[in-house]
């Protein structure tokens, strides 16, 4: 009878049951015991960490004031919120995403209007592309000039109407003398 119990097939079933019990009960309990389940912090958060993320955020109600240097009571609460989220195990990006969801794009200094948002990215990118095109065009023209055969000075400088006028005036002045 005992020999039947320790057959590989029974052993395999036992292991499967143990894994199932671990997944269903032990893992959730371990996560709860680490904190978060009862609001306890799951890790210590330093002031430097809070200030680092706060420096990447702007006060949602002040004009262009970074959150880490904002002196209002509301900003102090938001910095506390940053700390709470970090203590809950959120990453920096998750904290910033939370603030954007709650308070809008203004907390990361991005224009809220979709058109302005697009232009804020498109105009500098367009300027770089166009600038590169202008430089390439100028270089191409310089290269063409450098490689073209040199022309006689007279041929290279066509007469302008001013030149014709001046020549005629000088000729008539000479005739007067």
């Amino acid at each position: 009878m005992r020999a039947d119990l320790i057959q590989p097939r029974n052993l395999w079933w036992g292991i499967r049951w143990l894994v199932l019990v671990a997944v269903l009960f032990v893992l959730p309990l371990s996560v709860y015991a680490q904190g978060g389940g009862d609001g306890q912090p799951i890790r210590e958060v330093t002031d430097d960490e809070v200030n680092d993320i706060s420096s990447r955020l702007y006060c949602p109600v002040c004009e262009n004031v970074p959150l880490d240097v904002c002196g209002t009571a509301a900003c102090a609460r938001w910095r506390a919120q940053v700390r709470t989220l970090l203590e809950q195990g959120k990453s920096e990006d998750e904290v910033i995403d939370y603030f954007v969801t709650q308070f809008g794009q203004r907390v990361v200094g991005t224009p809220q209007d979709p058109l302005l948002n697009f232009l804020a990215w498109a105009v500098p990118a367009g300027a770089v592309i166009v600038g590169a095109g202008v430089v390439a065009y100028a270089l191409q023209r310089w290269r063409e000039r450098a490689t073209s055969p040199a022309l006689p000075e007279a041929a290279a400088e066509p007469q302008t109407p001013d030149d014709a006028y001046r020549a005629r005036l000088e000729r008539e002045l000479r005739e007067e003398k």
Partner: protein
Amino acid sequence: MTNTGTDVEAGDRQGAETAQAAPRRLSPLAIVIMVIVLALLGVLGLQLIEANRSQPTGGPAPDFTLQIFDALGGGTFTLSENRGKVIVINFWASWCAPCRDEAPALQQVWEAYRARGDVVLLGVDYVDNTQDALAYIAEFGITYPNGPDLGTRISDAYHIQGVPETFVIGKDGNVFQFIYAGVTARDLAAIIDRALAQ
């Protein structure tokens, strides 16, 4: 010799005609610079227009959907689905001192008009922590629908410049009155009565 001046003038005209016949073309570089400058001016102009937009004092009220705090019953409130009622939209925040001053007045008005069914008071919580907002609601015993302005979409649509600010929307869906500062129960009730009589 006497006709030298005439000849000079004729030459001048000829020169001018030659210049007109061959107008100077803008170089590609100048065109590119002009386009960039115009684009930058366009961006600045749009920003200026956006910055100068103010709260609506008339015309159709911007539509929105507000997620109501679970503590106040949950669900959503959509402005356009409440046409035919007078809607009072109050923007507030728990960190705002004047909001605390007017909170009892708003609850008083809600209790006075709630039974009628054609007046809705709505609190829009502006850039606030949820916990602080719920504590504020509990502190003042607020029972009218309230919810967070997620992403500041509603406050942006109404171009609010701070809190508290209150809009009274008429039964026709147009902005009936904009109240820039805090309200008193008597003043707000008078405005609601006027909106109901409209």
